[in-house]
């Protein structure tokens, strides 16, 4: 009964909070690159993409993280970029 009650009224337990905070902090720890480096990468990517589409520079998010490799064995670094597109230009169509 108690169990059912706690499941129905399930709020975030402290371990959920711990896990979430850890995951976020580890993304940054694992990246192990300077903010300047990321800014440089970001700048270049914007330059290239802007030739083809209009993007929301403010909302652009770019992170270096790790992901499980598709071959299965172990972790590989990955660059994850979230680039909101406002409009696709007519170049090259």
């Amino acid at each position, binding site marked *: 009964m108690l169990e059912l009650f706690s499941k129905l009224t399930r709020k975030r337990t402290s371990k959920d909070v711990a896990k979430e905070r850890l995951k976020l902090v580890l993304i940054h720890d694992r990246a*192990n690159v300077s903010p300047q480096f990321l800014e440089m990468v970001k700048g270049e990517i914007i330059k290239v993409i802007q030739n083809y589409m209009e993007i929301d520079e403010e909302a652009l998010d770019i992170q270096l993280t790790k992901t499980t490799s598709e071959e299965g064995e172990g972790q590989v670094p990955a660059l994850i970029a979230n680039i909101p597109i406002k409009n696709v230009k007519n170049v090259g169509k």
Partner: protein
Amino acid sequence: MGEVIVITSGKGGVGKTTTTANLGTGLALSGKKVVLIDADIGLRNLDLVMGLENRIVYDLVNVVEGVCRIKQALIKDKRYEGLYLLPAAQTRDKNAVTPNQMVKLCDDLREEFDYILVDCPAGIEQGFKNAIAGADRAIVVTTPEVSAVRDADRVIGILEANEIKKPMLLINRVRPEMVKKGDMMSIDDIIDILAIDLIGVVPDDENIIISTNRGEPAVAEGKSLAGQAYRNITRRLMGEEVPLINLSDHDGFLTKMKKLLGFKSA
């Protein structure tokens, strides 16, 4: 040829030394020839946890500096056949040994022992680098706390960068009743975050404090749950497949009574 296993963690106070003492004793009880190296120069403690503090003559630094031969510095544990300790120097600093000297020492010991366990200092500086220099495998000790898990992640990264592939995770001081309530990260949570193989789980057990007080590793004593966990980990180290102990079977008195009376445990 013996195998060199470093026991490390990043964060201090999570149980590296206790783990080294228990696994070493466990391996010796299984008939293996084992040497424990205390690589925590300046903060030597493995001797105390093992109850061998009164028998130190020479130490690790004396050996690498050629002041004495390895044989002279090894302390034979008279209680357990085949178990030896190479103590750390207490009055020197971490730079007294170089990674190359450590590799040479481990290689020399390999000739004579089945297992060489290296108790690593906390941190990721020179002392840590020395300790891992000669290692084939690594056990990363953590506890279910954010700080310990974060540091473990860092150490795993450095180990892999140093060609110590596939480090094994040991989760120490788990409290099943807190995990059940959602107030402690579970084994699955931690593996999910760190993404490495698990070698074992040790429950939080006051018997560890008692056995450390006495200088007698819990693994040698029948009734403690932590001792049982360490015996299992020892067998896994030797390549056996041993299932994890079901920690929630060892509930407190109240839960046991509830179960007896037919209440579902919460």
